[in-house]
């Protein structure tokens, strides 16, 4: 269906006519593509006027400018001092290396872009054309031919007459599909108890000796190393104990003020009372947030809160690090600690009593946790 006036549409021309102009041949092409010219005129009807020359000079200048800045980019890339020597001051030329590259390359591209766009918008003919859309499906004729072609193919293969072959092919293809994805099975690993046992487990990681508390540099932690009200991050004192190999082990050791420690002792969950989890006014909480596992590392001494900066879960230090705000649902597990009588440094008397870190699908709900 044609949407516009067919009377405006030029008639078919005889292409063998030698008197045809180039434009007439061109318009015949448009006609064959169902295109009609609504409006078409040169931007400058009189070629070579001052206005046209001026526009040409502008576009030419833009292209040449682009070339200039591209050259500057290459020159700067090769000869501008660029090597970072460990100091950064705006006086050093190497500080300006990246900005100079960006500005020269950017300006070169932008000038070329504006040149091309100006050419298109100011020098190309003013045109408006309309083309038939031919929306919708094929003609009924075409459809009918296609249908019978498909039907013939189906018939030739005998897909309808040979149901056994179809079923057998499907039954054969299904395992083949499985065989294609089966090699991915190599990725499957049993997480085992890796989400529940940490490097504080003495039997597994330290031949049964209680695991000591160490700092990142490996120094064992003694009570006098943490001032009252202070806190440090401690790691299990085993090989690679402070590395990402044991990402669930980082623990926060807090030296509480007397009155805060008193409150915590009153609030202490029975499971922690039983194992005497605190030592003096010292308490150790898992640093791995029980929400999704970021380190809950911001300690607000005045309000006695631990805050996880990822999703703002907040834990009350003087109430078993129970969650008091944000999306976390469980307290930060307490690491039962004591001080080794002979050596004078902290050791963990056992692993965490409940799995640390975020919840996972097969995380067991321990009866002890119901006391929270």
């Amino acid at each position: 269906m044609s949407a516009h006036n067919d009377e405006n549409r030029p008639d078919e021309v005889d292409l063998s006519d030698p008197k045809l102009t180039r434009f007439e041949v061109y318009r015949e092409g448009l006609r064959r593509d169902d295109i009609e010219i609504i409006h078409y005129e040169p931007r400058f009807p009189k070629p070579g006027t001052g206005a046209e020359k001026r526009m040409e000079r502008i576009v030419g200048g833009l292209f040449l400018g682009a070339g200039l800045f591209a050259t500057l980019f290459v020159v700067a890339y090769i000869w501008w001092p660029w090597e970072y020597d460990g100091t950064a001051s705006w006086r050093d030329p190497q500080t300006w290396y990246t900005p100079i590259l960006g500005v020269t390359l950017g300006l070169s591209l932008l000038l070329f872009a504006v040149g091309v766009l100006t050419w298109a918008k100011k020098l190309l003919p003013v045109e408006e054309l309309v083309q038939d859309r031919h929306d919708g499906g094929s003609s009924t004729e075409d459809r009918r031919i296609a249908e019978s072609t498909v039907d013939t193919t189906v018939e030739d293969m005998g897909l309808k007459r040979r149901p056994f072959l179809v079923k057998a092919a499907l039954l054969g293809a299904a395992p083949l599909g499985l065989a294609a994805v089966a090699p991915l099975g190599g990725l499957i690993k049993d997480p085992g108890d890796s989400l529940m046992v940490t490097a504080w487990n003495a039997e597994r990681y330290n031949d049964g000796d209680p695991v000591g508390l160490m700092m990142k540099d490996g120094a064992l932690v003694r009570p006098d190393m943490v001032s009252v009200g202070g806190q440090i991050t401690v790691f299990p004192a085993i090989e690679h104990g402070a590395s990402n190999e044991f990402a669930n082990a980082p623990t926060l050791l807090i030296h509480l003020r007397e009155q805060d420690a008193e409150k915590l002792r009153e609030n202490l969950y029975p499971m922690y009372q039983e194992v005497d989890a605190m030592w003096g006014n010292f308490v150790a909480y898992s640093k791995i947030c029980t929400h999704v596992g970021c380190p809950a590392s911001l300690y607000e001494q005045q309000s006695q809160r631990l805050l996880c900066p990822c999703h703002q879960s907040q834990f009350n230090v003087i109430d078993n690090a129970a969650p008091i705000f944000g999306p976390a649902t469980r307290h930060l597990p307490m690491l039962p600690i004591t001080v080794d009588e002979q050596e004078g440094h902290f050791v963990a008397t056992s692993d965490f009593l409940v799995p640390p870190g975020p919840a996972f699908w097969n995380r067991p709900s321990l009866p002890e946790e119901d006391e929270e």
Partner: protein
Amino acid sequence: MKRRNGNADSLMTKAGGELDDRFKLARPARVLMNKVFPDHWSFLLGEIALFSFILLLLTGTFLALFFEPSMAHTTYEGSYVPLQGVGMSKAYESTLDISFEVRGGLIMRQMHHWATLLFMASMLVHMMRIFFTGAFRAPRETNWLIGILMFWVAFFEGFFGYSLPDDGLSGTGLRIMEGMTASIPFIGPWASAALFGGPFPGDSVISMIYIFHVFLFPLILLALITVHVGLVFAQKHTQWPGPGRTEHNVVGFRMFPNYVMKQVGFMLFIWGVVAAMAGLFQINPVWLFGPYEASVVSSGSQPDFYVMYLDGLIRLFPAWEFRMAPYFTLAPVFWPGIVGMGLSVLLPLLYPAIERRFTKDRGHHNLLQRPRDVPARTGVGVMVIVFWLIGVVSGGNDVFAETFDISLNAMTWGGRIGIVVLPILSYYLTYRICLGLQQHDREVLAHGLETGILMRDPDGRFYEVHQPLAEPDEHGHTELEYSGAPVPKKMNRVGALPPTDKGFFKSIEEPSDNGGTSRDEIEAGHK
């Protein structure tokens, strides 16, 4: 060497003939060059995404020459002093080397990152254009589906990309991904173990996501882009309603030279902007974050903007954990993280079908709708945008809280309440605004334009003179149908005022040599 006979014209003809002999190109080349495209600025938003994707392929290839996707342990000995002697992975070390030791490496990294942000942002804006104008309706539902799929492939492409450097910030992002993965019912811990090769973080995840980032996802994107653009080409672009424009034609200009020149210019423009931004504005300074350590994080840890809404939802979701004692636990992150993301994929995919259920409209549509003419859809769209924006703001609520000295907890509660209340409110407001705009269009069509000229009749009554848009009947009314095209609202729009003076230093006359017809008149369909 002897000069060839003949001029450039005959050489071209000869070359064309040789090509046509082999490939039979004469007809397809002519059809392609003559193809008519409709013209509107909003049709170029998807192109921004396409052009930034090409730039991403180019800069990404450069980066891949120097990046080492390995979590093997090493000690930094490069020229960035604060990290000298620090243990880190080879991935992080090679990212630092790209920034400090590779000539021009830093600007390539920054171009890659800025182009990504532009890629994602332009896809979002392009999707909004398609949505609000109803361009996803039949026969173009398939392209809408492909577009949504591309967005989500690009989402993970981007997330994996910024996870590759293995710095303090990106490692925290991976940690959150681990928490989300492990929360999935039935398969969670196993899926997480497969991803990280055992317990988090393991030593293989970087090399695994690397092959997704540089091979699998770009390949999928490239294939989908080809189909996406091919379908736009084959089904022909939609157009705005206007004089002479129907469901059955395309009004615009030819592919060659007009459309192609504008496209090339636009592509270079986008690249120029990205290059300048990469030189002038710092992005993702990984050297400040240090290597990833499971025990270290700081406040102000934000993902890239397109991931922020998800992080915001996770921050806002209440602390609801379901325990099926003693065996199973459904973590609170499951709802916003897994269900929230799943719905963000599924609902947009289903939207064209959902809308069709309500409208019962099965016809083909090649003319776009103005958002005001479909208040319900526009309302839903604004609702989604408001929901998304609250998620994004909440994803940075610690930064907002600190910058504006607001309580962090108040920000969280504001977000929790806002994300429920504000989308509903914005749906209602949008709906009413759309109706108001519709009514104003009808009013102008019936009574004419407000001229701003006040008159006083002999009784002392003041009234405003209206300029009817057609010959009025005896009551001063015009019976004009609303056609879906913009209705003029100002006298300037119907040519009441001459164009303002041109010229910077002194007034210059309108150039007389374009025949006196202005572009506006041509566009309005006057000959």
